[in-house]
């Protein structure tokens, strides 16, 4: 059967999120396989330029309205519901992101269709969608089967290659009327940027990241020493920042920074999806963790099962010796 797939786009500060291209690329491949088509729903105000980037889609459905100028969960939910109801796709893909988390599940309730979250892989076989989701902090994979009757799938960033969705092709854009956004119970007021004088870790080529496994604040000094020798910076997963051991400007992950350094060394980080989202695109990932089963080893290029208190000083020493004039 033909699978017609609708991808819901998201954008922030005038740029489409990478996940949109991941979903678009995957949707296009699946649609091609089954002889269906892909539509992308783009909501915003004055965002036609973004629609132009989505040429791979059979059609870009553009909902332009002042009330959509900034992402607002309620407005997006209302518009998406209308569009989906009207277009009746077989499958809807939404990003498993800060924005997607607000609307995917409510859409499934409003539309009376199933929803599967945290998708890491997606296939269509015998007229059913087979979704592999990452559950329990990445410690389990769950495969669920869905009828292609409008099911909604939330896709984890990093699940599919982004490049597949970034094909330069002229976009077919169809503007849709937007209705019923008059009395919102929810108003966007402002965007708050983490201002600060801290270094910008998105621009640092070497990042040494610490997680729960760091145990205590004193150990951060040890890691900072390593970072200094490696000419990099220390960053962290959420628990470390929540402890107040590093500033928020150093947080990597869904609610932190998205980084693509040359080296990402994950020390005592288990690799929960929220964190992986922020660092999966690093060129070289080295993970050190005492738990051999930690999901971080699933995305790392090199792994060491050891205590960071042993490995870090040894590596610091090795780097120091390497730098020392012979």
């Amino acid at each position: 059967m033909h699978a017609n797939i609708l991808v819901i786009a998201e954008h922030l500060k005038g740029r489409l999120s990478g996940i949109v291209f991941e979903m678009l690329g995957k949707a296009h491949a699946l649609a091609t396989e089954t002889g269906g088509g892909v539509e992308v729903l783009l909501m915003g105000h004055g965002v036609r330029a973004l629609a132009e980037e989505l040429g791979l889609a059979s059609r870009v459905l553009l909902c332009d309205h002042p009330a959509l100028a900034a992402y607002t969960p309620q407005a997006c939910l209302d518009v998406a519901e209308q569009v989906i109801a009207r277009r009746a796709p077989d499958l809807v893909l939404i990003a498993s992101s800060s924005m997607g988390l607000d609307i995917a599940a409510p859409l499934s309730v409003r539309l009376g269709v199933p929803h599967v979250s945290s998708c890491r892989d997606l296939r269509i076989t015998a007229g059913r969608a087979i979704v592999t989701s990452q559950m329990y902090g990445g410690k389990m994979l769950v495969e669920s089967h869905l009828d292609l009757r409008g099911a909604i799938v939330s896709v984890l960033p990093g699940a599919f290659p982004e490049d597949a969705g970034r094909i330069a092709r002229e976009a077919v854009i169809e503007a849709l009327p937007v209705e019923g956004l008059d009395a919102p119970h929810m108003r966007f007021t402002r965007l708050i940027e983490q201002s600060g004088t801290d270094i910008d870790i998105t621009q640092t080529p070497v990042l040494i990241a610490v997680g729960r496994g760091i145990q205590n604040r004193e150990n951060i000094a040890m890691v900072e020493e390593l970072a200094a020798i490696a000419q990099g910076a220390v960053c962290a997963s959420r628990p470390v920042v929540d402890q107040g051991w590093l500033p928020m400007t150093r947080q990597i992950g869904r609610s932190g920074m998205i980084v693509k350094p040359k080296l990402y060394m994950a020390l005592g980080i288990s690799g929960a999806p929220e964190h992986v989202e922020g660092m999966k695109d690093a060129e070289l990932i080295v993970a050190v963790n005492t738990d051999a089963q930690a999901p971080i080893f699933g995305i790392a290029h090199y792994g060491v099962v050891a205590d960071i208190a042993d490995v870090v000083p040894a590596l610091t020493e090795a780097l120091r010796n390497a730098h020392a004039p012979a």
Partner: protein
Amino acid sequence: MNIVVLMKQVPDLVEELEVDAGGTLLDRAWLRFITSEYDDHALEQALLLKEQHGGTVRVLALDMGEADEMLFTALAKGADSAVKLSGDFATGIDSHSAAGIYRHALEGASFDLILTGVQAIDDLDGPAGAMLATHLGLPYIGVVSGIDVDTANGEAHVRKEYPGGLLAEFTVDLPAVIGIQAAMQPPRYVPISRIRQTMKTASIDETAAQGERIAGAISVERMYKPERAGSATMLEGSADSIAERLLDILTEHGIGR
């Protein structure tokens, strides 16, 4: 400010997870439960708002895992009442069904705010809080790490986290449902003696969970542990030999001069 907090128990990842013989569920024999981290933050945020504005905090939970312990702990921390919704949840429950049960439990109740964790590690079909909001016709915002309530105008100013360290601020009319990513302070510590005392003096309201189970919407075919993806090359040996090996790898990649 009358606040409802939805809390739930999830498998504790400290224990090794195993799949049961059926191949679609976690093996219950080794399972141990813990309060979902985000729900703990939701409770903390509720208690902070209560301290600021007065009112009550009412905690709702399905009878799963160590629900009693979780609810008594919530009472010991300062919640005013705790409701346990009992039913057959031995093999867990999907969020759609849970949202339906909460809807029944809250119908006709009066409250200004419902707080719950933005998600849980076992929310295969999404967060129940977001779905409950739809059932109740209330606005919902998730991934929130800051709330200020303006009681005079009946609205809340919430800060939602975006990637890249950005925060978006929204004004929401109350009542509303908020999915908490983090409370404005880390969850408080409550001494064991207070929990024990609470177990003796306070009580949990128990009512039967109502609402239809929405079974079959998703059929889980398989649950399995991820293989340690072939991608990672594992380095073994003494700390020093590992360090030497890492040094070579970094040099290969042109890192560290």
